[in-house]
């Protein structure tokens, strides 16, 4: 792999940047792999990368029906934080946060991770009690967090309406300074390039159409372009399409796939240098380096695989933002889109063995899995390598919905992604 550096940039400028190596190969798949990963989003690519890097398993293919990162990875609003309430989830997201902090160096690829801080606003007494509880829980878990009052919030975000003169006055917020945003495409591309450099085959525009299961054990996958591909183990990382793949394997998951929409405005001068979210007023916003406001809110209420939702949801989202930031009321919106998010009843993911031997699922991240990309890939790779779930993944078994050991993160993960 050709490493990127300032010197490299200089060198290539002499040849008008015409001789850069391709970022990854475009191989024809082999007939058989040790591990096949279905889904070339951030999670699937990170899994492949850590399988090769940390476990020396390089006979791996990632099979993606569209283009790399074209699912939720490229559609999300890129908020990264680890301030979850319960120990199980806090540990998992904090594991990811620690990897984020060294990711650009590790991948030799600038993922533009920007720790600009994340504010979760409280507008009711109950909001504030929940925030205080969550921040205290975070601190006990060694995760940074503070409870701020409206005056302190005003200092961080001077343009937000922190007065009493609003319908839902801001009473306070949780503040995680280490939270922030990253460049979503770069995350997919960085992991893809890293995995490819270890010899992982990235197979794009190839859909897995069925799973080959013999005597309760998976032995391979069927594809629409390359026929059958054999596999020792299979990791399924298809987000919104997880139930479709589970059906091929003959079981159901506790998931529902919903459209989740987002929008960006026209680019404007720098005005917001942190991330603001409000569960109560129901919206969140940050500003990208390009200058556009990145805006989102909750899911559309119905299930859907169409990567689009309904207009009223967009309207409510924009209303919430204008309620918080009256100054944005005349900013024009540039683009709007939707992804398919796989929501789980307890707002926590599934990283799990399944009823089929050697078939593992990483799904259920719903509206908030981008922040977990390196961590989820890391623990899922360890699980695929050994056949036993990584300790951080263990609590997230799909079978928790049988034995009742749910991990309720609705407070930390409702509207806030």
């Amino acid at each position, binding site marked *: 792999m050709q490493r990127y550096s300032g010197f490299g940039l200089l060198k290539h400028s002499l040849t008008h940047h015409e001789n850069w190596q391709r970022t990854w190969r475009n191989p024809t798949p082999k007939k058989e792999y040790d591990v096949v990963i279905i889904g070339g989003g951030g999670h699937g690519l990170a899994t492949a990368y850590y399988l090769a890097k940390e476990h020396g398993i390089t006979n791996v293919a990632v099979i993606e029906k569209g283009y790399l990162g074209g699912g939720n990875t490229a559609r999300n609003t890129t908020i990264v934080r680890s301030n979850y309430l319960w120990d199980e989830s806090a540990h998992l997201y904090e594991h990811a946060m620690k990897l984020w902090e060294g990711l650009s160096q590790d991948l030799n690829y600038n993922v533009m991770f920007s720790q600009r801080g994340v504010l979760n606003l409280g507008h009711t007494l109950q909001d504030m009690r929940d925030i205080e509880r969550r921040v205290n829980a975070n601190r006990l878990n060694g995760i940074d967090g503070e409870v701020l009052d409206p005056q302190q919030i005003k200092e961080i975000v001077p343009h937000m309406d922190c007065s009493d003169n609003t319908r839902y006055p801001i009473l306070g917020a949780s503040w995680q300074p280490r939270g922030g945003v990253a460049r979503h495409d770069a995350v997919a591309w960085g992991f893809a390039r890293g995995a490819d450099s270890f010899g992982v085959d990235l197979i794009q525009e190839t859909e897995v159409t069925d799973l080959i299961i013999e005597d309760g054990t998976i032995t391979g996958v069927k594809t629409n372009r390359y026929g059958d591909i054999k596999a020792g183990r299979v990791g399924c990382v298809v987000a919104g399409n997880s*139930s479709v793949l589970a059906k091929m394997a003959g079981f159901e998951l506790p998931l529902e*796939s919903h459209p989740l929409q987002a929008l960006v405005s026209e680019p404007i001068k720098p005005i917001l240098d942190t991330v603001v979210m409000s569960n109560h007023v129901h919206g969140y916003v940050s500003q990208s380096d390009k200058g556009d406001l990145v805006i989102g809110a909750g899911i559309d209420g119905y*299930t859907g695989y169409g990567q689009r939702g309904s207009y*009223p949801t967009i309207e409510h989202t924009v209303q919430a933002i204008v309620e918080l930031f009256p100054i944005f009321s005349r900013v024009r919106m540039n683009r709007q889109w939707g992804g398919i998010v796989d929501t789980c009843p307890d707002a926590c993911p599934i990283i799990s063995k399944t009823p089929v031997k050697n078939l593992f699922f990483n799904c259920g991240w719903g509206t908030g899995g981008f922040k977990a990309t390196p961590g989820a890939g890391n623990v899922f790779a360890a699980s695929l390598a050994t056949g036993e779930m990584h300790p951080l993944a263990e609590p997230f078994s799909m079978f928790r*919905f*049988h034995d009742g050991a749910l991990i309720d993160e609705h407070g930390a993960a409702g509207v806030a992604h």
Partner: protein
Amino acid sequence: MFHIYCPHCAEYREEEEFHAAGQAHIARPLDPEACSDKEWGEYMFFRKNPRGIHHELWVHAAGCRKFFNMTRDTQSYEIKEVYKIGEKPSVVAE
């Protein structure tokens, strides 16, 4: 934006008056105490979540507040039919 026909009000109304309430035709176990953890868990949490034809429960939340069923394609979002509680769908997946 859906334009939904409420079978109780017998007219088309805008989506915002309605609320999607999940998969239809989930029968509550007759004797919950006799269920295994697995059976109860599947009843509570596990869902078909199909890509394609789906039967779901909707409620006319800001209208007559009554529940009804809908057959809808979750890929194209086309509403195939609505039918009352207790009735069977006429459009089903192959």
